[in-house]
C-alpha cells in the first residue's frame, strides 16, 4: 500500500482525479505522518484536524458531484505568517498570542477557490527574521535529514514539513532567501516569484518592498502548479503587477538546449563550503551536458548586497512591526499609560532578533543618519538591479549556489548574528532586484546534507527558471531521495 504522504502536489491531483483516494484519505495520511515524525521535526505550530477533514470531505463531495478543479482536495501547509480566516497567525511570535485572523490572505482565498485544503500552519523564524528557524517563540524546527541541524529559515517549517513528507507542499515567504535557503537546506524545491507576481495582501509584513509569497515543494512541476494558483494582480495590493499568469509552467518540457546560462564569478567565494561549490559546479556541468551554453557573467555589486539588504529590510520592518502594541489584538502587558503599555508589551512579546532588527531599522531612519544609510542603500539597490539587467543581456538565467554552506548544527551560529547575516549573501540580491529565483536540490555534502542550486531569472520570467530547474531535476534523481524513512 502506498503512503499518500509521499505524494507530490501533481501526483495527489492525479490520484484524486483517478478516484484512487479521497481528499480525506490524504489528509488522514498526513496526520498519521505528522504523528509519527513531527515530535522530531517540530514543523507544525497549529493543526485543526477536524476542520481539515471537514474541508477535505467537502472537497470530495464537490468532486463527486462533478465540480471543483484539478487541485480540489489537495492538502497543503501554510507558513504561520499568512492570514487564514478563523485561524491563529502567530508569525512565530509571542506578541500575536490570542490573535485570530479575521480574513483570508489573497493567496489563501485563491487556493480555497481552487479547492485546495489547508491542513495546518508551519513554524518559522519570528516575523520571518532569521535564516535557521532558531528565532521562533515556539522552539526551533529541525532538519529532517539530520535533526541536530537547522532546517534553514525563515520558512524552515515549510521546508522541513515537505522534506519529512508531513506536507505535500507548502507556502512560504521570501524576503532575503527565506524560501530558497530552507528549501536548499532540506532538499526541496523553493520558488521566490518576482516582486509583484503574487499579492502580499494577508502576508504579515516583514519588509514590504522585498517580501514575496512562494511555494516549497517536492518537484519543480509542483512549484509551477502552485505558482499558477496564487499568482496574478490583486486590487488589494498596489504593488502586485498586471503580468500575464496564463501559461505558467507551460515551458517545463521544452528542454534547455541552446539556452545561455550565466555563471557569476562573485557567487563562488573564498570561505564557502567546498562540497557546496563542488555540487553546484557538478550541476552546471549537467546543464552543459543537456545542451545549455555556460557563459561567465559578472554581478560586481554583490559585495554590497548584504549590507544594503539589512538596512532596507530593517528600516521597513521597524515601521511594519510598530502596529504590534497590545491595543487592538494579540498579547498585552498593562502599563500606567499607553506608551508604557507599548513598551511592556513589546519587551515581553518580541524575541531578541526581532528587537535587534527593529532597533537597527529605527537607527538607519533616524534624522541625521537617513541619508548615510537608508538613502544610500536605496541607491545601491538600484545598482544591484542594474547588475542583473546587464547580466541578463548575455544569458537567459543565472546559476549560483543558494547559500555558502549546507545546513549547520543547531546553536552553531546563534551567537554571531553577523555570520548568520552573511549566509544570506547569494539570496538577498534577487529580493533587492525584484527578480525571480528557484532553488533545486543538486546533491549532498560529504556529511549527507542537501545542497541547492539557485536559478535566477529576469523579473516575470518564472517560466524560464522553472524550465531550467525542471530539465535539470528530471536529469538527476536528487529530488526522489527522502529525508526520513
Amino acid at each position, binding site marked *: 500500500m502506498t503512503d499518500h504522504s509521499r505524494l507530490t502536489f501533481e501526483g495527489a491531483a492525479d490520484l484524486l482525479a483517478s478516484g484512487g483516494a479521497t481528499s480525506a484519505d490524504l489528509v488522514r495520511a498526513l496526520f498519521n505522518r505528522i504523528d509519527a515524525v513531527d515530535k522530531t521535526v517540530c514543523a507544525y505550530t497549529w493543526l485543526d484536524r477536524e476542520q481539515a477533514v471537514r474541508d477535505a470531505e467537502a472537497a470530495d463531495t464537490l468532486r463527486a458531484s462533478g465540480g471543483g478543479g484539478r487541485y480540489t482536495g489537495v492538502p497543503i501547509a501554510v507558513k504561520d505568517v499568512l492570514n487564514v480566516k478563523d485561524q491563529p497567525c502567530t508569525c512565530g511570535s509571542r506578541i500575536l498570542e490570542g490573535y485570530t485572523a479575521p480574513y483570508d490572505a489573497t493567496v489563501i482565498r485563491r487556493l480555497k477557490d481552487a479547492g485546495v485544503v489547508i491542513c495546518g500552519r508551519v513554524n518559522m523564524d519570528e516575523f520571518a527574521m532569521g535564516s535557521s528557524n532558531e528565532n521562533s517563540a515556539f522552539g526551533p524546527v529541525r532538519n529532517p535529514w539530520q535533526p541536530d541541524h537547522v532546517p534553514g529559515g525563515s520558512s524552515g517549517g515549510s521546508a522541513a514539513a515537505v522534506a519529512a513528507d508531513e506536507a505535500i507542499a507548502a507556502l512560504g515567504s521570501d524576503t532575503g532567501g527565506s524560501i530558497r535557503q530552507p528549501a536548499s537546506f532540506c532538499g526541496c524545491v523553493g520558488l521566490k516569484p518576482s516582486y509583484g507576481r503574487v499579492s502580499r*495582501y494577508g502576508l504579515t509584513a516583514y519588509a514590504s518592498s522585498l517580501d514575496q509569497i512562494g511555494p516549497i515543494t517536492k518537484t519543480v512541476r509542483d512549484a509551477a502548479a502552485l505558482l499558477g494558483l496564487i499568482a496574478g494582480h490583486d486590487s*488589494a495590493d*498596489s*504593488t502586485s503587477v498586471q503580468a500575464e499568469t496564463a501559461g505558467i509552467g507551460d515551458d517545463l518540457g521544452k528542454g534547455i538546449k541552446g539556452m545561455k546560462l550565466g555563471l557569476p564569478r562573485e557567487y563562488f567565494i573564498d570561505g564557502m563550503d567546498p562540497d557546496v561549490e563542488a555540487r553546484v559546479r557538478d550541476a552546471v556541468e549537467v546543464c552543459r551536458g543537456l545542451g545549455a551554453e555556460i557563459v561567465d557573467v559578472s554581478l560586481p555589486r554583490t559585495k554590497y548586497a548584504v549590507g544594503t539588504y539589512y538596512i532596507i529590510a530593517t528600516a521597513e520592518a521597524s515601521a511594519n512591526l510598530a502596529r504590534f502594541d497590545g491595543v487592538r489584538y494579540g498579547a498585552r502587558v498593562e502599563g500606567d499609560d499607553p506608551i508604557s503599555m507599548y513598551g511592556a508589551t513589546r519587551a515581553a512579546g518580541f524575541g531578541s532578533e526581532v528587537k535587534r532588527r527593529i532597533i537597527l531599522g529605527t537607527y538607519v531612519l533616524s534624522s541625521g543618519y537617513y541619508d548615510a544609510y537608508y538613502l544610500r542603500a536605496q541607491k545601491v539597490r538600484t545598482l544591484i538591479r542594474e547588475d542583473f539587467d546587464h547580466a541578463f543581456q548575455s544569458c537567459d538565467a543565472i546559476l549560483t549556489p543558494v547559500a555558502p554552506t549546507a545546513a549547520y548544527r543547531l546553536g552553531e551560529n546563534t551567537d554571531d548574528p553577523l555570520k548568520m547575516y552573511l549566509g544570506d549573501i547569494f539570496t538577498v540580491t534577487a529580493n533587492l532586484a525584484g527578480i525571480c529565483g528557484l532553488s533545486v536540490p543538486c546533491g549532498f555534502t560529504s556529511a549527507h546534507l542537501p545542497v541547492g542550486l539557485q536559478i535566477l531569472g529576469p523579473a516575470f520570467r518564472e517560466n524560464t527558471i522553472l524550465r531550467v530547474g525542471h530539465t535539470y531535476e528530471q536529469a538527476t534523481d536528487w529530488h526522489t531521495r527522502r529525508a526520513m524513512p
Partner: protein
Amino acid sequence: MIASVGLEVHVQLRTNSKMFCGCENRFGHDPNVQVCPVCLGYPGALPVINGKAIELTVKTGLLLGCTINHRSKFDRKNYFYPDQAKNYQVSQYDQPLCSGGHVDIVLDGETKRIGITRIHLEEDVAKNIHFGDASGIDFNRGGTPLMEIVTEPDMSNADEAFAFLSALKQILQYGGVSDCNLEQGNIRCDINASVRPSGSDTLGVKTEIKNMNTFKGVHRALKYEIQRQIRDIEKGREIIQETRRWDDETGVTASMRTKEYAHDYRYFPEPDLLPVELTDAQIEAWKEGLPEMPADRRDRMVRDYGIPEYDAGVLAADRAVADFFEATARACGNGKAASNWVMTDMMRCLSERETDIASIRMAPEQLAALIGLVDKKVINMPAAREVFSILFEQGGDPETIVKDKGLVQVSDEGAIEGMVDQVIGEHAKSVEDYKAGKQAALQFLIGQVMRISKGKANPQVVRELFMRKLG
C-alpha cells in the same frame, strides 16, 4: 512690532470611502463600525489609494493656483500613539500633490494675497475618548482622507487669518471638496505665529498652537498670542519655540511643555504604495470639471438675471444659496423677484431659525410658483409673505395654500368701490388732509381699505379709485 502668521489647515474630504480602504467615510455612526483590517492596522492588511481623494486634492490645488506635481508619493510618518492604528501615519513628506498657490482675501476693501506653500494628502487619526479612569478609541475616523494646506507666514494679524479661513472655506465648499462643517471637525488647523520689530526682515521665533477647530477660536487665540509675544519681548523675555494650547474658557494660550520638537518622525517612502503619477490629460480633465467660482458666478448672474452686482455678490457667496436662487429664477423667469425674496425674506428666516438653505423644506420651484402668483396679481405682497413663511416651515404648493387661506386678491373695482366709499365716509379728516396735499393721508386711507378687505384688496386698484374719487 509686526506679526507673521502661518496656518496648517486640515480638511476632511467629501469622499464615499476612506483614504486607503473601502470603509465608509461618514460622521455620526456608533463607534468602531466603519472599520476593517486595513484601517485597524491588522497584520498583513495593505493600503490602496482612494482616487477620489487624489482628485479632490488636485482640484483644490487648481482652485488655489498651485502647481500640480506630476509625480508625488506617500511616506510613513512614524510615531507611537493610540490614535494611530499602525503607529505610523501614511502622509506625504517631500513630494506633495500640489506646490505653491495663493488665496486672495479682502479686508476693508483691500485685497491681500496669502501664499500657499503646499497641499498634501494623508490619513486622519482615530478619536481617543476618555470616560472616567478608562479610555477608548473610535476608529471610525481613523484612515479617512485628510488634506493639509500649508500657508506661507503671510498673515499679519487675527483678522487676516480669519478672512483667510473664510475665503478658503468658501472655495472648498464651492469646489465640492469638503462640506467644511466645523461642528463635525471638517476643518481643523494649527497656527504658527511669531513677531519681529518693524523693519526687521528675519522672522521671529515662532510658537505653534495646535488643534484649533473653530475660526472664532483661531481669531481669539491669535489676538491673545500675538499680544503675549509682544508683551514678553517688551519685558525682555525670550520667545521659545514651543507648542502651546489654546484654552477657550480662559482665553489664553499656555505652554504644553511637550517634547514635540524632539520628535523624529523617521519619514521614509511608503513601500506598500506606488508613487502617484498624473498625466497632463488627467489634470486637464479635472480642471474642466471644476465648478464656477464665486466671483465668476457673481458676474454671470448679473448678466443672466439683470440683478445688481451687490446682490449677485451676496447670493454667490454661498454655493447652496446661489444654487437655490438660480433654480428659482430659472423656474419663474423673474430674476429680480427671485433675488429679492432670497436676499430678504429667505436670509432673515434662515438666520432667525439658525439653519441653512439645504435644510429647509421649501423647494426653489415652490418659491418660483409663489413669485408667479404675485406676478399674475393673484395675491398681493402681504399675502405672499404669509405664504412664504408657510413654505419656509413646511413647504407645499403655494396655489393650494392661497386657496385654503382665502388669500386671493380682490381686484374687481365693483367689489372694492363700496369699501372705498365706506372709508371716505368714516374718515372725513383724512380726506380733507389729502385734498390739502398731504400724501401720507392717502396711504392711511388705502390702509383702511386693506384692513376692511382683510388684506385681499389689490392696493393698486384701491389707490386708483381714491385718486379718481378725490381727484
